[in-house]
């Protein structure tokens, strides 16, 4: 096994861990953390692809775009979690079912 396969396996395991967090918890902040964990693997894959193809500068631009998306996901997820907490006193996503409108 070479370095590329090892990094691919580690990235896939990170995605599994992130998806597990999304499936098994109801805490909205924790779910956002799960998404962030999976996105770390995406960042690694992008740089790995750039390094393999020899276009590292191009892959870095994609990574910067992914990071912006990552921050926005964190901001919106945390904002929604705080809003949920203020309304229901808990960050349980099951409370979202009670919202009307």
């Amino acid at each position, binding site marked *: *096994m*070479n*370095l*590329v*396969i*090892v990094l*691919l*396996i*580690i990235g*896939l*395991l*990170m995605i599994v*861990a992130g998806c*597990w*967090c999304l499936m*098994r*918890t109801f*805490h909205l*902040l*924790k779910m956002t*953390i*799960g998404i*962030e*964990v999976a996105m*770390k693997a995406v*960042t*690694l894959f992008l*740089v790995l692809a750039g*390094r*393999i193809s*020899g*276009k*590292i*500068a*191009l*892959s*870095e*631009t994609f*990574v*910067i*775009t992914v*990071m*912006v*998306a*990552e*921050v*926005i996901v*964190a*901001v*919106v997820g*945390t*904002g*929604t*979690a*705080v*809003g949920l*907490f203020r309304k229901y006193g*808990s*960050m*349980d996503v099951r409370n979202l079912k009670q919202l009307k409108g």
Partner: protein
Amino acid sequence: MNVIVYLGAGLMLLFGVYAVMEHSILRAAIGLALSSASLSVLLYVLGAHLAALFELSVCSGLVTVIFIAGISLSHSPKMEIQKEYRDKERNRLLPLVLIGVGLLLVILALTLNLQTPELAQLTQDDDVRDVLWGNRQADIWGQIALILCGGVAVAVLFREERREKK
């Protein structure tokens, strides 16, 4: 170089799994920050210097600050969180799942004899700034749209709060 890559990747996975499994949200956010820091080391060694810098400052710093701000704005006691969500019980099987999936992937990689490419030599032909501002201008517009969406989302959430106070 390979030792640092393996070490960085291993630490990234370790801290990522810790962030998922830890029932304290504050510790989970710190685990995520450490995972980001490990990834930034990995990116630097792989030659993506600017991405490593952004990863360290934005994902390891800013995102952690956002999470900690969210935690400080909600004051639920730790024990209640554990009682309510039962994360410990729910995530108990995760290490076993990861070991199982990891073993399966290793066996597949060894038996299928995949023709994987090697890492190319680093060249300094392209500059990130030239590629970003020259070839990928659509990405910049996308980023601007994303940032605006984030700003609008936060503004809407705060407006709701003001209405409740009235």
